[in-house]
């Protein structure tokens, strides 16, 4: 069977499963819709969190980015896993004990203020929309290559699917679909990785294969070989990287703290029964995430070595089938500058003739390694699972922010449960349409946009929540000022140095402290902390009953069920 047929079959089966689960677990109340009824087991929650977490960026782009960035790519590996330690130790158990539906719920109640709630809602919306745009784009990329439709049609198909199960099932539908999606995506990621690891090093475990000797009888270590190939072509050594230490440090910190501050991740810990379940499911989630995250750097090394071996200094007309396939999508470009018919791949921009988009490394990897057709199709199904599961989780946060935090808590407090459920469904629908628009007209390539969402989350939520739990005397004036300053500073830096909204994008030598926009979230977070703590000193302390709430959330027993008031 051809790759095409296999893709239709596998994608068709997985989509049927997702829709089946969505119908079976549709939401009957707002509690079902926001927190899946509050009775999800730690294992199911861990799996759902992992699928929610591992986005199109993790599945499709990350290994590719690492393949081209080498050591510099470590920022994503450490950043997107280390945040779970912060989440498990500093946030999840206490937020679960607090027992509300959304992150703005916590901010609004802990800081006894409608203004704080509204600021938090806007932060949640900005963060989630930035993030979801990247997901829809990822869906489009996968559809366009494997189903041979254009990227925009791909985005629209993706929108319809997500719309179906997010609107119908809410958090309950999403959680159980995500459990299935985790299985699909991890299987789809591991199978080709194991195949290629055996092919190149003889070791079936990619994590070890990466550090083994090559299978060709030379006795050279794979990483040594790749370092050699990279320097030969004029690039930096693969294991060294070229970013400054301070920038690597700042990006890693921004991604870690951002992870812990992302509303769609935090909200997952509201769905379990007890505080100890929240801790445990954070551990399970990270374990399941780590399987992919420790494999990705191995895939990066395999793919990069394979790519260089296949294309470098080879005649264009002898290129394999996959080369032509990816040229059609525009993600792989060959420009024969010296007209010798040979592909010159080098770090020198003037002579380099090959441009490879980060995104295709994982998708093209099985083809480059000449794996069977069903494996290639499996990767397509996995990429879709990753993108859809994250998009659905984000849409839920967006719809809950609007229907619960704005409509129910601010505008129409008398709305009935049924009415609120319909409002939630309606806002999910609107959110899908907006996300689809961003997917079709993306503000940048997938991972860049996603990385900035972390900066925004780090700059706004993390300090407010941590201070809210660990510092009883933190008051509303301090928290609100901190959030506003943090997120504004981050937005300003993004606009100036990344998006070019304030005139031409300045040279990287003008970065503040030498820190890139991706890493600036850590600076904005520090600013948030400083502003919060300073303003707090000059304003009245929080009322006694709020300080009592803080005492209560520090004790794990008696969490009960999440409630509205």
């Amino acid at each position, binding site marked *: 069977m051809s790759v095409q047929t296999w893709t239709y079959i596998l994608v068709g089966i997985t989509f049927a499963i997702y829709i089946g689960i969505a119908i079976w677990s549709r939401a009957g109340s707002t509690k079902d819709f926001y927190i899946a009824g509050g009775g999800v087991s730690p294992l199911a929650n861990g799996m759902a969190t992992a699928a929610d977490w591992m986005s199109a960026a993790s599945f499709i782009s990350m290994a590719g980015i*690492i393949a081209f960035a080498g*050591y510099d*790519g*470590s920022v994503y*590996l*450490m950043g997107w*896993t*280390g945040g*779970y*330690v*912060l989440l*498990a*130790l*500093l946030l999840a*158990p206490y937020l679960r004990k607090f027992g509300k539906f959304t992150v703005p719920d916590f901010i609004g109640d802990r800081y006894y203020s409608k203004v704080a709630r509204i600021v938090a809602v806007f932060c949640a919306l900005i963060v989630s929309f930035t993030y979801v745009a990247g997901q829809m784009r990822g869906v489009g990329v996968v559809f366009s290559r494997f189903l041979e439709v254009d990227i925009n049609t791909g985005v629209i198909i993706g929108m319809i699917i997500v719309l179906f199960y997010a609107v119908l099932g809410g958090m309950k539908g999403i959680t159980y679909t995500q459990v299935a999606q985790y299985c699909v995506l991890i299987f789809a990621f591991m199978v080709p990785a194991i195949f290629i690891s055996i092919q190149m090093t003889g070791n079936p475990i990619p*994590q070890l294969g*990466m*550090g*083994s*000797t090559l299978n060709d009888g030379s006795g050279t*270590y*794979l*990483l*040594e070989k790749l370092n050699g190939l990279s320097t030969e072509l004029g690039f930096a050594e693969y*294991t060294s990287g070229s970013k400054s*230490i301070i920038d*690597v*440090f700042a990006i*890693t*910190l921004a991604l*870690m703290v951002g992870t812990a501050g992302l509303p769609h991740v935090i909200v997952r810990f509201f769905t379990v029964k*007890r505080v*100890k379940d929240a*801790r*445990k499911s*954070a*551990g399970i989630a*990270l*374990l399941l995430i*780590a399987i992919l*995250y*420790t494999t990705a*750097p191995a895939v990066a090394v395999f793919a990069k070595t394979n790519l260089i071996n296949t294309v470098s200094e080879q005649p264009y007309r002898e290129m394999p089938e996959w080369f032509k396939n990816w040229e059609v999508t525009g993600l792989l470009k060959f420009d024969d500058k010296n007209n010798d018919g040979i592909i010159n791949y080098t770090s020198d921009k003037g002579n380099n003739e090959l441009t490879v988009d980060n995104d295709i490394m994982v998708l093209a990897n099985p083809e480059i390694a000449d794996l069977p057709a069903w494996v290639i199709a499996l990767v397509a199904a996995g990429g879709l699972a990753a993108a859809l599961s994250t998009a659905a989780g984000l849409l839920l946060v967006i719809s809950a922010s609007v229907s619960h935090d704005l409509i129910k808590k601010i505008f129409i407090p008398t709305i009935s449960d049924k009415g609120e459920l319909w409002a939630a469904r309606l806002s999910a629908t609107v959110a899908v349409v907006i996300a689809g628009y961003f997917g079709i007209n993306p503000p940048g390539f997938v991972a860049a946009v996603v990385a900035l969402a972390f900066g925004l989350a780090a700059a706004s939520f993390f300090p407010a929540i941590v201070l809210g739990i660990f510092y009883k005397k933190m008051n509303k004036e301090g928290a609100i000022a901190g959030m506003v300053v943090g997120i504004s500073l981050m937005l300003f830096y993004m606009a100036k140095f990344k998006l070019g909204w304030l005139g031409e994008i300045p040279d990287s030598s003008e970065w503040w402290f030498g820190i890139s926009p991706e890493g600036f979230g850590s600076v904005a977070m520090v600013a948030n902390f400083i502003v919060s703590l300073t303003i707090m000193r000059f304003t009245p302390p929080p009322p006694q009953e709020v300080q009592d709430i803080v*005492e209560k959330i*520090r*004790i*794990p*027993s*008696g969490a009960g069920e999440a409630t509205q008031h």
Partner: protein
Amino acid sequence: MDNQEKQQNASAYWKENVRYLFILLSIWFVVSYGAGILFKDALDSIQIGGFKLGFWFAQQGSIYVFVVLIFVYVRLMNKLDKKYGYDE
């Protein structure tokens, strides 16, 4: 327990909790920011198999330690909950 005892129990529990957090987060910092970033170049002079040690910490080792840290935390806290009667 009367109210005052309850209060004391709660603050003793919180103190121990914060001490655990401090220790675990120090390890978290050392394996990632320490071994994987700040001292990466120095550790790279040590080679284990095909891996330079600093590079290994940045792309593999730190992640393994993160997973272990959370499960250690879960165990410690479950014990602590029992010790102070907050288990359920």
